[in-house]
C-alpha cells in the first residue's frame, strides 16, 4: 500500500482512515489490502486496530466473524 501525506495524527491514523473510508463507501474491504509491509514497525499496530474495527462492524451488523 502506498503511503501518502502524513496527517497530524500520524501514519497509523491515515491507514485506518483509508480503511474506514473504503468501508463507508460500501466497498468490499480486505484487511490485508491495507496492511503495511510485514517488517514495517507499524504492521502489528495497524493489524490490531483494523481487526478491532472490522470485528466491531461485523458484531453490529450480525455478520459472522468466521
Amino acid at each position, binding site marked *: 500500500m502506498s503511503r501518502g501525506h502524513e496527517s*497530524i*495524527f500520524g501514519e497509523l491514523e491515515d491507514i485506518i*482512515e483509508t480503511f*474506514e473510508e473504503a468501508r463507508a463507501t460500501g466497498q468490499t474491504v480486505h484487511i490485508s489490502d491495507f496492511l503495511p509491509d510485514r517488517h514495517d514497525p507499524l504492521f502489528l499496530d495497524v493489524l490490531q486496530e483494523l481487526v478491532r474495527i472490522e470485528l466491531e462492524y461485523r458484531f453490529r451488523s450480525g455478520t459472522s466473524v468466521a
Partner: protein
Amino acid sequence: MPNSLIPEPSDRSLLRRFRAGEQEAATRLYLRYAQRLHGLAIAQTGSDLQTRMDPDDIVQSVFRTFFRRAQEGHYQVPDGEELWKLFLVIGLNKIRDAAAYHRASKRDVSRTTSLDADQSSIQPVANDEVAENSLRMVIEELLTSLSESQKDIVILRLEGAQVEEIAAQTKRSHRTVERTLQKFRELLRLQIDDVPHLSKAPDVPKGSE
C-alpha cells in the same frame, strides 16, 4: 529581477525550511511577526504594567516557545494560511501569565494601589473571555490540520453529540470515533501546555468511551 518582485516565501514554506535546519527561515519569521507581537504586547498592557513588563521579553518568549515546539513538529500551516493566529494565541497567553505574575508580586510588596487600579492595568486579558477565545482559536487551528472526517468527529463532539450518533453520522466505527477524540484531546493538551490558565478551560467533552 529586483528583489521587490520576488514573492515572499509563505509561512508554511518558512516553517518547513526552519524544520530542515535553515536559520535564515527562522530569521524571516522573526522579522515578519516580531513587530506585530511587540505592538500586541504594548496594546494589551496598561500604563503601570508597561513599566514592569518589557514587551521585548514577551516577544522573545513567544518566539522561544514557537521555535522549540515547531522543532518538535507541533505546528502545521495549511496552504495559504498565516502563522499570525498562532503567534497571537501564544502572545496573549504570555502576556496574561506575565501580568498575573506581576500583579501577584505587586500585591505582596505594595498595598498602596487599590484592587481596582490593579485590575485595570490588565485590559482585556483579565477575564475568561480571552481564555475562551484563545482556546477557540487553538481548537480552530488544530481542526485545520485534521482530515474532513476527523474534523467532523471533533466538531460533532464539541456540539454535544454522543459517540453512537457521531459514528452513525460520519460512517465511522465507534472505535475510530473514540480514538480520534482521544488523539485530539492529547493534541489539544500539548498545544496548551505553554498556557497554563487554558488548561482549566473546558476540554473536548469525554463521551461514553
